[in-house]
């Protein structure tokens, strides 16, 4: 029953595979906006799937369970839009305009003078710190405005994403079955095995990270509100979302809160409190939240995680940084299981 392979035909197969792969990647690059929507929808559907299964276990059909989840999310979104959206909108708009506090301007100028006087031997001169900081903050505001709050993307996102998520949740099992049915007999069971392993490792990672982001976001909003930091709501949400990005996320959230507090108060008085607050949140996250919610995640070396985040950020921006770890985890599981299976196949 030994299978002998023809190396010539294998080369043809590999070449065809690579050409098809390059065509596919090029096609995906052309329709990158749709791909982005699909990825976000697939991740949301994946995260919400256990909830639908739970409702099914209570006697609901898949369609009813999916509809119930959507009605609940819609209700939450309506309440949030009445309560929080005006605050969020005002905060982002203010961030887009920039900071005009005279006190902050004076403080930044003093700091700039101090740097120029003391570090002149390093060639430090004409830093224009204030205009740079104001420019950077305005860019952040504009970026958020352009990417999340402009009319076109809101309408596209609000209509298309729920639509895709609904059908992915309702018919996800059928899509998976249809995909597996086109696999050749030889790879059919192994494909299902890969799905199974990916679901265990990546699924737990994504759900854990999302829950972790929500908890850290709530803690950050609360801490910044207690400290009286302006734009506490938007910075808290950003800190929570940024927390999904390993290593860089938590530091970025704290740094933005510190910059805002300096520009708001015109002094460094709040910096220590913000550092203490974010350190405490980090400790609670590391000691209590992470071990419970992100316990069964993809086990990867910290260096690989760091490189993955850097490369993801370089190639695809913030979305790349957010998705880099699950994508590398996906590749790791596929390669690892394929090698193990190939070795077993060789031994048999």
């Amino acid at each position: 029953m030994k299978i002998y392979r023809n190396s010539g035909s294998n080369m043809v197969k590999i070449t065809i595979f690579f050409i098809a792969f390059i065509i596919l990647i090029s096609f995906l690059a052309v329709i990158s906006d749709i791909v982005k929507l699909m990825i976000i929808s697939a991740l949301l559907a994946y995260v919400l799937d256990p909830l639908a299964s739970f409702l099914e276990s209570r006697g609901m059909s898949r369609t009813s369970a999916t509809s119930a989840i959507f009605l609940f999310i819609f209700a939450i979104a309506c309440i949030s839009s009445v309560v929080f959206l005006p605050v969020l909108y005002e905060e982002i708009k203010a961030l887009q305009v920039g900071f005009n506090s005279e006190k902050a301007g004076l403080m930044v100028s003093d700091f700039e003078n101090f740097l120029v006087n003391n570090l002149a031997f390093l060639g430090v001169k004409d830093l224009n710190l204030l205009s740079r900081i104001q420019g950077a903050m305005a860019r952040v505001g504009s970026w958020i405005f352009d990417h999340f709050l402009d009319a076109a993307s809101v309408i596209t996102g609000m209509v298309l994403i729920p639509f895709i998520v609904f059908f992915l949740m309702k018919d996800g099992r059928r899509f998976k079955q249809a995909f597996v049915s086109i696999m050749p007999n030889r790879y059919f069971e192994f494909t299902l095995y890969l799905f199974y392993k990916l679901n265990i490792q990546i699924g737990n990672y994504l759900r854990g990270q999302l829950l972790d982001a929500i908890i850290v976001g709530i803690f950050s909003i609360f801490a910044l509100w207690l400290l009286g930091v302006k734009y506490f709501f938007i910075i808290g949400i950003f800190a929570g979302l940024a927390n999904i990005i390993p290593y860089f996320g938590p530091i970025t959230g704290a740094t933005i809160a510190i910059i805002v507090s300096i520009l708001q108060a015109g002094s460094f008085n709040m910096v220590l409190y913000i550092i203490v607050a974010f350190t405490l949140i980090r400790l609670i996250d590391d000691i209590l939240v992470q071990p419970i919610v992100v316990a069964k995640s993809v086990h990867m070396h910290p260096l690989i995680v760091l490189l993955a985040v850097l490369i993801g950020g370089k190639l695809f921006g913030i979305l790349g940084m957010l998705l880099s770890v699950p994508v590398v985890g996906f590749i790791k599981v596929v390669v690892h299981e394929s090698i193990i299976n190939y070795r077993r196949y060789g031994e048999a």
Partner: protein
Amino acid sequence: MNKLWENIFKFRQKETDEIDNILIQIPIFQDLNNRELRTIKRILHQREYKKNEVIFNQGDVGLGMYIIVKGTVEIVCGTAKHMLAELNDGDFFGELALLDDSPRSATAVSKTPCKMLCFFKPELLDLINRDPGLGSKILFKLAWTIGERLKSTNEQVSELSHLSHRTQLDS
């Protein structure tokens, strides 16, 4: 035109009846009602194999059981391809993979063109999550089936050791 649709409908009906008849013969699905059987049918994978096609190799990762709807499958073991069993319509194999993660202990090859139904672990786990009642019914029958196979293996081992003891005494 109506005739054509009638024929297509009948063909599908025939196929469904064939699957239903096979499923109710399988001990794991025997105690299920019509609604539960429909749920099971939705999660089964249907595959077709050519003559002499390898279904799985000894040492492959195993994920679940195969049910033969039509055809003959040979179960062979080791490099010498020692034949362990020949299975026909309505028989099933590989059910241990529903419970453990160890690699396949034998190779399964289709001796004739085969039509199979496949029931796999991820679907079973998903079923346990969303319909615990049906999931536990299947697990109970699965445990029963494996118990029966263990009893039968014990009897065969006992017979063999008895035979070997008698052969030793005779010589």
